């Protein structure tokens, strides 16, 4: 049956993270953006919430909560409301953990997941993007060549969130000549393996707190059983769907923050004798922002619910991502516009939100739902 109702657990998780987002993330967003760094005490606090291990199976030491992309989307929306940059830094490990839960072999789960269930923060990430313009996952240049029983990875990955801090990486590479995405596999790579060089990447427009790294893979040997999944490795399409949903969910949260910040300003700011919110041009802009933010959320929920129902979420997640990408930037941009010149100054968040939103809607591997 069709329903928009959250479970009690979902409401609770969302509320907890919303409170964390407003009290811990939002307050540090500007300083982290300027410093291009997430403060480690904050990352520790985030870790202590225990959400990374929440859905790790009990036999791996985790919370054993059933995986739900709807729940993840709710969490990410709440976090994005506070600060998408700090959120992506604090929860980058999920880019590694969630695919392991969903697609890893029993043996891989038992080998790699327990280390994410401790009290000590453990960073990991996922490497998707590459340097060529118009990057297309189906046409990626990073290669995994068969070498005896194992694999050899070669290529350069860019814009890897928290890459410098990650102890483990999930690296996407072309592993066969199968056309398009069918030939792509994910590999579990130790960040201090021979041939791996990780360095801070060039600066980015936004999400600077996410600590983007460049990962060079020079003939990196990976054992046969470190291709994600059993045997020849799992189809990565569900992983891509989870990434689309994750990024879009953060964008919904950020969009909501933009609107909630713009509304009181528009009601207070007086021009030509009355609050600008009483001008239809501003009022209708806010109405459109609200309309699209709602629609964006339902698109994310729909895609997430498809996955939760055990159906292929590829199409629904592409539609959600496409929809969110087209509307979220507009919301952030209109948010800045409502503040006029004040929106252009780095004293207030709108300009940062525009930059962050732009990154969220261009980068395909910021968060895994």
């Amino acid at each position: 049956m069709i329903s928009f109702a959250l479970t009690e657990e979902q409401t609770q998780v969302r509320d907890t993270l919303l409170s964390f987002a407003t009290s811990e993330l939002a307050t540090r967003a500007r300083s982290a953006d300027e410093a291009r760094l997430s403060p480690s005490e904050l990352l520790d606090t985030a870790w202590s919430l225990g959400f990374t291990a929440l859905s790790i199976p009990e036999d791996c030491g985790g919370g054993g909560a059933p995986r739900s992309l709807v729940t993840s989307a709710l969490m990410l929306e709440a976090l994005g409301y506070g600060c998408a940059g700090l959120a992506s830094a604090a929860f980058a490990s999920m880019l590694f953990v969630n695919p392991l839960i969903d697609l890893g072999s029993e043996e891989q789960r038992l080998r790699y997941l327990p280390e994410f269930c401790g009290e000590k923060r453990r960073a990991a990430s996922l490497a998707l993007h590459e340097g060529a313009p118009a990057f297309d996952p189906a046409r990626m240049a990073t290669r995994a060549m068969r070498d005896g029983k194992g694999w050899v990875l070669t290529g350069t990955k860019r814009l890897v969130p928290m890459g410098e801090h990650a102890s483990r990486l999930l690296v996407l590479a072309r592993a066969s000549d199968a056309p398009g995405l069918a030939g792509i596999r994910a590999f579990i790579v130790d960040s201090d393996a021979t041939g791996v060089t990780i360095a801070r990447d060039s600066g980015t427009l936004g999400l600077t707190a996410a600590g983007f790294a460049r990962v060079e893979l020079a003939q990196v040997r990976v054992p046969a059983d470190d291709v994600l999944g059993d045997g020849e490795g799992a189809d990565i399409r569900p992983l891509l769907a989870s990434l689309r949903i994750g990024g879009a969910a953060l964008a919904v949260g950020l969009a909501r923050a933009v609107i909630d910040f713009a509304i009181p300003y528009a009601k207070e700011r007086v021009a030509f004798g009355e609050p600008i919110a009483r001008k239809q041009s501003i009022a209708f802009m806010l109405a459109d922002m609200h309309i699209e933010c709602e629609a964006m959320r339902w698109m994310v929920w729909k895609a997430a619910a498809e996955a939760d129902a055990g159906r292929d979420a590829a199409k629904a997640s592409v539609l959600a991502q496409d929809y969110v990408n087209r509307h979220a930037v507009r919301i952030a941009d209109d948010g800045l516009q409502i503040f006029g010149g004040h929106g252009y100054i780095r004293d207030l968040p709108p300009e940062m939100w525009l930059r962050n939103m732009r990154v969220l809607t261009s980068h395909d591997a910021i968060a895994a739902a």
Partner: protein
Amino acid sequence: MVDFSLSDFDRAVLDGVAAEARVGEKYARYYDEHEDEVLPKSFPEAAQFPPIQQRLRGRPRDDTPMLLLQVLMRIEREAHCGVPLRQAPTALGNAALGAAGTDAQKARWGNLMLAMSITEPGAGSDTKAIQTTARLDGEEWVLNGDKIFVTNGVRCDGAIVWATVDKSAGRGGIKSFLVLKGTPGFELVRKEKKLGIRSSDTAAYAFRDCRIPRDHLIGGDEGVPRGEGEGSASYKGVLKTFNMTRPFVAAGGVGKAIGAFRVARDELAKEGIAVDFDDSRHARSATAQTLLELEADIEAATLTVMHAAWLASDGMPNNLEASVAKAKGGEVCRTGPQRAMDALGAMGLSHDYQVEQYLRDGRIADIYEGTGQIQRLVIAREILGYSSAELT
């Protein structure tokens, strides 16, 4: 739990609605081109399809809320370019009677087909500006004024007519009255020729010293409340029905967009143009990208409509969400068929395909029951916490 799955039962219901709508497509062009003809009460093919109430019999109670299913049925129906195989025995006025009429009135007139007559040449969305007057003269109301855009105004048995009993009282003076066809002084001025939805009749009325019995005042309350924002019980009762009619109207718009989209998608697939969801936009053709974006926009509009209906089904307030749904539904039926046409190219203009009729039929959805501008006004007031006086 958040879920967008349909039970097998509901899937079958919707498939049945779609099958019935598909059969109605054979009459679409005829009634589009012969707008003076009134549809028969039912077409022969109607016999193939049991009435909807019958099809819903035995439906589990814990399934998708009924209001939501009804919205989905509307979408299925409108996603085809056809005329209904059975004409509904009721019209908008019946809903208003149901919402605001006394029990006696409901019993007396419930079986008639009643149109709703609100709009005037000088008052569209601004219902406060209504000029039609009702004056009590002994035991009769005397109505004077002109009404336009009366849906089903030709085929109905009578109409619920909005008129003011006291212009100085603003909304508080507006009451609704039942006027039966054939009442002296009640004239059907003309049937409008429209861009689309030509099989649905739209009438203009004139009331000239039209006398109706005193008990034809819907709800029976003759009191006139004062003060801004106030309205009589019948006025408010009717307005309340709009919280549910908006999602339905939006569903109509979404349906038309879906219909146009499907034609474009299916015809283009024959030419080898299709969306591969594994492709990036760099690999996809511009036309395929248009299909993808259109499908996303349709999905988004559908979800807002479903959300507004779901809230209503659960008894939760949905004034804001009903307007969100109407805004999205109105928008997608304006841009959707247009984009389907862009994708199809010049032949999309031709009567060879139904896209051009989806465009014409769908175009109404952003206009009636409150234009997209009116919906945005409602939404802005809600999110800004402004009254209708503070944001105009």
